[in-house]
């Protein structure tokens, strides 16, 4: 499907382009900066690449590809059939000139380009608001450049007033603060309903929002830079803290991507354990999202009903992994240890409690007039808009787009489990919340099937270069000791190359674009964080609705700051 033939017309039209494939068979076309804009337009309009997944850059300093320029910018696209993925790679000839913006072609490009500018200092000519997004405005330099020292922190003394972003928005709408009697409301970054540290500035006409602008980056923790000085297995704990409401799922997504680069397939038991834990994490994630969202609405009882089963799930996870929230249970090539004896009973108990919590909560809201009046037709996102914004996961499905990686690119035997894809209709706040309720039930169906059919056998790939030797061998044999020593000090070595791997996480497509130089430490890691793009759309979709609606919309998008800001 991803054969050269598909790209032949493109390659003929733009002669300077050349075709390569990344590891994992994803095509990567090297393009010339002068053709970039027209090529992207061609991809979108003629070839059907409807979604821009991600934009990032690579700094080649100290990684000399023959003849390459220092910075390359990578664009990842997804076809409207949601099966094909492709990449574009463009060399940045002159860093002062940068590249042309594609933010008028794809809504999602806006923030993604800002991030590349912030982190790598590659400017995008024609971008409407090219300013820093993750780092504060007093920051000097570009942290993801290879010559930026990782520990070089810079104090921030002031917050920004954001009017530089708000003013053009108002101008575009023909509004004036004084004349139209508008008020600016600042929500966050420390606000009880802002679900983490997110700041939104809303221009209000009475209660109605006429323009919005969001500021993020308050929880930027340098995940991607930290990856560049840790071994692959050491990165696992960092992945826990991306979407900390479903830590295990991030572990799995990262480990799976690295395993794909190494061509490893887990033994079946390992895969089943991953499926069970991934789906349980999805349930926990949705529970937290719904509990907090309903709490914002004043439905506090729901908070207790939904939060308590989550605690039971955490009891199970801490028994299994030793930690409630940040489990770090996965390893490249498998996981730390097998399930404990009697896990089936504990797990079934958890599921029963979740079932009960969901039923109790639904009983209160399903036919509740207040619930419906407050959510129906609030901030609807059409299918086309959702795709343009780069929505994935429950938020995209709420808009009626039947896309779920578990169906689109079956892995981990997802195609053998009997479960349904949950799709909404209009993509309003109601749909976004209700899709999550239903998805929990579907996930529990998967868990029950997987728990019933889980095979025996090993859980880790049987390779010395990947999996730790048994402790007994480490203490009694020189080979075992050396094996352990090398794995700890040098890490699991990943072949040279680049790869994009994605996983259907609780919030949507969690992808990792990894460049390896063949060592035990990645040369570059970029997270495609679903929350980042959901948040980018947020100030646009709350327009025309009231402040109270905006709070619920934020809750329904389930923005997790750790994942968004990385």
């Amino acid at each position, binding site marked *: 499907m991803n054969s050269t033939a598909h790209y032949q017309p493109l390659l003929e039209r733009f002669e300077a382009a050349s075709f390569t494939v990344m590891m994992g068979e994803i095509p990567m076309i090297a393009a010339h900066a002068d053709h970039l804009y027209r090529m992207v337009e061609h991809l979108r309009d003629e070839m059907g690449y409807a979604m821009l997944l991600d934009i990032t850059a690579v700094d080649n300093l100290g990684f000399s590809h023959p003849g390459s320029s220092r910075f390359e910018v990578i664009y990842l696209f997804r076809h409207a059939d949601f099966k094909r993925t492709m990449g574009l790679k463009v060399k940045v000839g002159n860093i002062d000139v940068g590249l042309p913006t594609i933010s008028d072609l794809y809504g999602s490009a806006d923030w993604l380009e800002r991030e590349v500018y912030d982190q790598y200092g590659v400017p995008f000519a024609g971008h409407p608001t090219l300013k820093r997004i993750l780092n504060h405005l007093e920051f000097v330099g570009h*942290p993801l450049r290879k010559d930026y020292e990782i*520990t070089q922190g810079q104090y*921030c003394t002031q917050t920004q007033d954001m009017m530089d972003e708000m003013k053009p928005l108002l101008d575009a709408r023909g509004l004036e603060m004084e004349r139209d009697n508008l008020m600016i409301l600042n929500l966050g970054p420390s*606000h009880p309903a802002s679900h983490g540290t997110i700041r939104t500035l809303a221009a209000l006409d009475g209660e109605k929002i006429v323009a919005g602008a969001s500021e993020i980056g*308050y*929880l*930027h923790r340098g995940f991607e830079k930290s990856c560049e000085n840790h071994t692959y297995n050491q990165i696992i704990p960092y992945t826990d803290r991306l979407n900390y409401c479903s830590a295990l799922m991030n572990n799995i997504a990262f480990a799976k991507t690295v395993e794909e680069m190494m061509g490893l397939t887990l033994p079946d038991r390992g895969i089943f354990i991953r499926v069970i834990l991934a789906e349980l994490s999805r349930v926990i994630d949705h529970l937290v999202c719904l509990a907090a969202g309903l709490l914002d609405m004043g439905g506090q009882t729901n908070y207790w009903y939904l*939060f308590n089963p989550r605690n039971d799930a955490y009891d199970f996870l801490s028994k299994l992994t030793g930690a409630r929230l940040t489990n770090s249970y996965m390893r490249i090539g498998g996981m730390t240890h097998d399930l404990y004896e009697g896990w089936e009973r504990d797990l079934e108990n958890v599921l029963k409690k979740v079932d009960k919590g969901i039923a109790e909560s639904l009983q209160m809201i399903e036919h509740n007039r207040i619930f419906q009046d407050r959510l129906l037709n609030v901030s609807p996102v059409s299918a086309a808009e959702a795709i343009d914004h780069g929505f994935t996961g429950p938020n995209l499905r709420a808009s009626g787009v039947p896309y779920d990686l578990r169906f689109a690119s079956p892995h981990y035997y997802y195609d053998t489990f009997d479960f349904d894809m949950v799709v909404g209709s209009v993509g309003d706040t109601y749909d976004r919340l209700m899709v999550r309720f239903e998805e929990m039930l579907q996930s529990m169906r998967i868990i029950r099937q997987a728990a019933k059919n889980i095979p025996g056998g090993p859980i880790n790939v049987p390779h010395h270069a990947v999996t730790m030797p048994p402790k007994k061998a480490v203490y009694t044999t020189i080979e075992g000791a050396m094996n352990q020593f090398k794995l700890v000090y040098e890490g699991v070595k990943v072949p040279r190359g680049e790869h994009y791997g994605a996983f259907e996480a609780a919030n949507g497509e969690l992808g990792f674009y990894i460049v390896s130089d063949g060592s035990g430490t990645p040369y570059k890691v970029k997270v495609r964080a679903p929350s980042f793009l959901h948040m980018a759309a947020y100030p646009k979709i709350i327009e025309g609705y009231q402040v109270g609606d905006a709070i619920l919309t934020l809750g329904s998008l389930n923005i997790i700051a750790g994942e968004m800001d990385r």
Partner: protein
Amino acid sequence: MDLSNSHLLDDAVVCTKVDAVINWGRQSSLWPFVFGTACCAIEFMATAASRYDISRFGAEVLRFSPRHADLLVVAGTVSYKQAPILKQIYDQMPEPKWVVAVGACASTGGFYDNYTTLQGIDEIVPVDVYVAGCPPRPEGILDAVVQIQKQLWREPTLKLRDHSGFKGKLDE
């Protein structure tokens, strides 16, 4: 003694110290402001929910205005970008006030020894109790509340708490 007798204390005189009475009140009605930024904040949510129930320690009246709060609970990673906001919130809280740093990040920057992360909130605001863990279990957070209660018990109420020895990185 029959406690249901409402006249029990009618003519009684209770002798005590002002400090003891006021601290008794403060101790059992700490009003936390939760500066929740990251993963640790999720565990604070669990601490407030019914299983761990922070109200057993009289600290369930979570305030979202710093003006109403006397216990600043910093739960989560604080980045350089957030530091001025943390300071502003701390400054807005009226005295007497106490600060708890929940988790490795708030205490020391945790394993984010990098360009974004403040290496401990005590660079910005004075901290009374640190809680270890990444994230700490809810019991750990409850323990911090108890530690504050114990500390508070010894403090004179007619004098302002003395922070003069503290100079944060953002204090001019």
